[in-house]
């Protein structure tokens, strides 16, 4: 069982570049989430989706965009990367309840 798959695992970006973090789940979950995790901090919600075609902002959405064209995929787009976006990004999914979320293994992003 693959669960939640994130790609890439690591990436170094230069300031001003753009990239898309990929996330796919094979559990047919309705809810999907993007979190960022900074050292010594908890996870902060960037964006979430309650189903295909529906997305909404979380606590820290600035500098990011998402789309949800299918149930399985929930890519996160970074436009004009900044050093403040250096972080570990986690994608998660859940059937209904957010607390029973399954997390991917994360993408470590460094912006230099």
């Amino acid at each position: 069982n693959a669960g939640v798959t994130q790609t890439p695992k690591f990436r170094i970006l230069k300031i001003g570049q753009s990239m898309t973090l990929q996330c796919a789940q094979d559990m047919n979950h309705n809810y999907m989430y993007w979190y960022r995790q900074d050292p010594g901090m908890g996870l902060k919600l960037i964006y979430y989706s309650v189903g295909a075609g529906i997305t909404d902002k979380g606590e820290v959405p600035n500098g990011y965009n998402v789309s949800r064209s299918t149930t399985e995929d929930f890519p996160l787009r970074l436009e004009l990367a900044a050093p403040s976006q250096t972080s570990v990004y986690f994608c998660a999914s859940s059937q209904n309840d957010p607390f029973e979320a399954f997390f991917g293994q994360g993408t470590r992003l460094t912006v230099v």
Partner: protein
Amino acid sequence: QQQVKQSPQSLIVQKGGISIINCAYENTAFDYFPWYQQFPGKGPALLIAIRPDVSEKKEGRFTISFNKSAKQFSLHIMDSQPGDSATYFCAASFKGGSEKLVFGKGTKLTVNP
């Protein structure tokens, strides 16, 4: 206020000892309190969770204690093992199946052999 405050930031325990991690919240709208365990290089994984209508929940060596009046909850790990060494996060979610989890900042637990 949507914060969940977690302490301590780090904890070192000897094998066989009891690990205790505490969390406090302000918003009484929270109605579900999960704990996540995260190993280095991995995503968080749900460990155990509790609702405010019970004061304690136990699963194996892991116990959540909940004090609704004090707006506090804690994780106890009995007979701590080196394999329990990880970062633990408490979290809270809102009523009505809210889509949003609010996380504490995490506690790095080290269990020495």
